[in-house]
Each structure stands twice: as C-alpha cells, then as structure tokens.
C-alpha cells in the first residue's frame, strides 16, 4: 500500500485529494486486514477439514467404491448393514476395552506423577524432560519396539514374568492381553504429558489454601484429596476429553503392533482391531468401499461424542468440587 502511494507522481505536495485517498486506504486497511489475516486458516480448514468430514456423510449414503463409475444412492443401507456387522461391533468392543484399560491407570499415574513433580526438586527440568520424552518419540517406531518387547518367545515382558515365576502371556493372540499391551504403549506415551498439564494446574492453586488446611490439622494425603483434586477437576475433565478423542481413534499403535499377513485386521482373529482400523480396512486396501467405510467413520464420530458427553457428566457428579469455571484448555 505504501508502495502504491509512493508511486503516485509527486506533483502537488499536499492536496486534499491525496490526503483523502490515503485516509481511505488506511480505513480500508483497518477494516479488511483482520479478515485477510484469518482467512488462510478458515479457507484451508474448510477445504481440508470440514468439507471432508461433512462429505463423508454424503458418501455414506451411497454404494460407492473406488472402481465403480456410478454410485447409486442407497439411503441408510450402509448403516443398517453396519449395525448388523459382527466385525464392526467386535471392533467397537476392542476400542472401548483399550480405551478404558489405558485411560484410567494413565490419569491416576499422571496425577501421582504430577504430585511428585510438584515438590522442591533438584534438577527440575531434567525430571520433567525424562517423563515427557516418550511423548516426542515416533509413534510408529515405538509401536514396533513394543511389539518386540511383548513378543511371544523372546519378548522381554514374558522373560520378566518368567523370572518372577509367572506363565508367559500370548500378548498378540489373546484378545484381552493384546488390549493390555497396546494400552501399555498408549500410557507410556501420554502419562508424562498429562502429568505436566496437571502439574501446571497444581502450581496455580493458591498456597494459603494448604496452609490453612494444615492449621486445621489436615495431613498431606487429606490435603491432596480435598484441596488438590477438586481444584484440578476442570483440568482433569480436559485431559479426559482429549484422551477420549484420541483414544477412540486409536490407529497407529495397534496397526504396527501386529505384523505378518493382513495386519490391518489387528491379529488373525481381529483381537485388537480398533474402529479406525476397521474403517481403514473397508475404505482403503483391500476393499476400497468408500460408502461403507464412511458409515463406519460417522458411527465412530457419534461414539466419540457419546463417550465424551458421558465422561463429562460422570466427572461433574463425582467429588462435588467447583466445576463452574471453564477448564484449562491446551
């Protein structure tokens, strides 16, 4: 804009016209710039975020596959077929099972870890880095490493079990055992991250609350449960929602935990196939059935919304602490 102004022939030093023009330009600048600056985000997100999600619903109402030239409208047929699909429900149970087994211990451990980190420590940053480092490693790499740690014959976990006199576990071919192994992977990655979020919220709790509680004779454990935890509730709810959205879409860990033939099934008998894996199996290789895969995506979307809502309702009830304030958001 300045360039344009400078480019005007400097014939008359200060005419009224010039001033009016530059004034108008600057008004235009103040009015339009904000929209110009936020436009890239909204345009790109609309095209590559919102549109695909909405269009998924449209596709799910059609008999649509990669090779077919026409894709007839079939209404709710994909959904009715899906609701009667044993493999789909099997994947739903797997996903929820892994979600529960991973999230509950993860948040309890994170709370405990945050409590430890909230003390006068030497080398504070070092400890924080140590618990966060799993979160920055490559998910695919870690899934492969855990796949070996939980191996049948030469896996380190079974070796340790043997050392303490326990039987070896079939971590890949036993359904619940495979859930546990995958949950271990998820918890390994996310416990430290959640601990740091909770730690940040803990440090924001005013100190005098603890002092007056101590004067009233509350010991440390009592203080933790009746001051720290209730005041952390918004943050805990935030962590649960994030864990729900991520956990119910789990894909990379279970996918790479298995190798061999058809690993997208999550084991020979679909022991740990999650819903996202089932969507992938139907929508891409080997079936390329876009319509059916899209129906899976939308039911998963509904499942996430339901589970998140239930979690929030249950957590609000529990404990009865102040929950009117908006939680910490990342």
């Amino acid at each position, binding site marked *: 804009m300045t360039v344009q102004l400078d480019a005007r022939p400097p014939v008359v030093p200060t005419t009224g016209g010039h001033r009016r023009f530059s004034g108008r330009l600057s008004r235009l*600048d103040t009015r339009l710039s*904000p929209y110009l600056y936020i436009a890239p*985000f909204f345009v790109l997100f609309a095209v590559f975020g919102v549109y695909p999600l909405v269009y998924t619903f449209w596709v799910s109402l059609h008999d649509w596959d990669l090779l077919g030239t026409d894709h007839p409208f079939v209404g709710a047929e994909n959904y009715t077929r899906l609701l009667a699909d044993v493999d789909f429900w099997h994947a739903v149970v797997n996903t929820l099972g892994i979600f529960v087994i991973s999230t509950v211990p993860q948040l309890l451990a994170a709370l405990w870890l945050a409590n430890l980190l909230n003390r006068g420590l030497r080398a504070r940053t070092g400890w924080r880095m140590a*618990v*966060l*480092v799993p979160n*920055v490693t*490559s998910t695919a790499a870690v899934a492969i490493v855990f796949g070996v740690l939980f191996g049948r014959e030469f896996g380190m976990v079974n*070796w340790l079990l043997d050392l303490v006199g326990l039987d070896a576990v079939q971590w890949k071919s036993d359904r619940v055992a495979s859930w546990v192994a995958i949950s271990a992977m998820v918890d390994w990655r996310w416990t430290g991250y959640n601990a740091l979020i909770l730690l940040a919220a803990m440090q924001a709790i005013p100190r005098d609350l*603890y002092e007056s509680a101590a004067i009233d004779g509350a010991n440390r454990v009592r203080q933790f449960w009746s001051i720290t935890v209730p005041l952390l509730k918004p943050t805990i709810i935030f962590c649960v929602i994030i864990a729900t959205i991520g956990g119910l879409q789990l894909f990379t860990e279970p996918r790479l935990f298995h190798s061999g033939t058809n690993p997208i099934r999550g084991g020979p008998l679909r022991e740990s196939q999650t819903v996202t894996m089932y969507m992938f199996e139907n929508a891409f290789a080997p079936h390329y059935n876009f319509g059916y895969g899209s129906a899976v995506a939308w039911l998963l979307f509904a499942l996430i919304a339901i589970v998140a809502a239930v979690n929030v309702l249950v957590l609000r009830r529990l404990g009865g602490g102040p929950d009117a304030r908006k939680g910490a958001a990342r």
Partner: protein
Amino acid sequence: MSRLWRASPLTYLALVVAAGMSIFPIWWMFVVASRSSDAMGQLPPPITPGGNLGANISRLFDNTDAYFLTGLINSTIVAGTVTVSVVFFASLAGFAFAKLRFRGRNALLLVVIATMMVPTQLGVIPLYMLMTRLQWNDRLPAVIVPALVTGFGVFMMRQYAGQAVSDELIEAARMDGCGTARVFWHVVVPALRPAAAVLGLLTFMTTWNDFLWPYAVLNDPANPTVQLSLRALSDGYYQDMSQVFTGTAIATLPLLLVFVLFGRQIIGGIMEGAVKA
C-alpha cells in the same frame, strides 16, 4: 508457585523408577540397533550397546523394499514445509484475533477452538477422493497441503500475542504511518518469536510422526515418508530385527535431538498453554 513439600528420598526413588520406564524403551531401541540380529534371541536380553551400528545402517540404506533414504528426505520436506506454514499462518491469525478489532471476532475465535475438538482423521475418505481428483495421490502435496494450518496453532499464538505484543508499540507504529502489514512484520513478529519457536517444534514433531493419512494416500512404496518406510520394514516377510530397529532409531533421532536442545521451551509451552486458556 507453591513449593510446599520438600522432596524426600522416596520421592526421588519414585521419580527414578518413572524416568527409567520412560527412557528404557528408547534406550533399548538403540541397543538393538547397534547389535547383530541374533541379539533378538538372547535371554536375558542384552541392555548395553554393541558394535554393529555401522553395518546395520548400511544394510538399512541398501534395503530395496524400505526406500529409507527417500523416506527421510520426504519427511524432512513435508515436516519442514508444514512447520513454516503453520507458524506463519498461525502468527497472522493469532495477531488478528488478539490485537485487531473486527466484527465477528469472538464468534470466529470460538470456531477456531471448536476445530481443535473435531476428529478430522474421520474425513480421510473424501480427502482421498479429493486427492485422486487433483492427481496428488502418491505425491507429497497430498500430505503437505491438508496440514498447512491448525486451530491449535492459531489459538496458541492468539494467547501469546495477547500478553506479549504491546498495544502502545502498535499505536506508535500506526502514528508513524505503518499499515497493518508493516505493524505485523516490524512489531508483532519479533514479539512472537518465542511462542513461534515452540509452535514450530511441536508442529515439526507431530508432522514427522504422522502415520494414518500418509499411509492412506502414499501407496507407492518407492515414495514413502519415513514412518511408512518403518511400516515396510516391520511388515516385511523376513524380519531382520536389528535392521528394523536401526530404522526406528534413525527415525526417532531428529525428534530426540530437537527435544534435548529445546526441551525446556517445549515443556514451558505445554505447561503455559495448560493454565492460560
């Protein structure tokens, strides 16, 4: 900051255990990567590095199924481009949301926050169809372009700009005749630098790690990202575990390097983000 309780030896013991569990799988990855493949069958398993790293690396790069070098180069291009773009657009939008007055500002900001809750991964099917139409399948733009902006980035920069950019400085610059673009470039960008660095690091790591979408859209085994190379290695019919682990170690190394150099800032970014909203 309430530092009420002193740390007891028990606290340190518990932290040592926690830190050990965090670090061990990574450590072990490097151990196996530096040994010969029969390390896999040994019990008790070896936990100290061996001398085979060089041989494993050259076998990995010679492996004609994994295209590991291509994967590394592709991931560098993808993560680098996405990082620059996310930081730039997030700074622009974050500045507008924090410091400029315009109609619909609060409503639009709510939309940005809501986008962080949307499971966009569920839109991969139409995205795949879109890429087919654009003929971007098997090519890097397919994984770069959809990742160019994030709601998280915009929100983070907006939070930071609110407190780091001084209104007086903006006013003064405007008095001197600066348009909004020059205000952004000369006043806002320098003030946003610390947050931009954290956002850049986080974005780089997320993009480098991304798996599902590249797996869906980059089907040509000769043109993978590094995570897809790992998949090819791990799904291989004959598994040479020390070679696979060399791959996982090399794919993790850039992330660890970034983390060791900038861990303090990354931790600060995560923790500040948690309290401020």
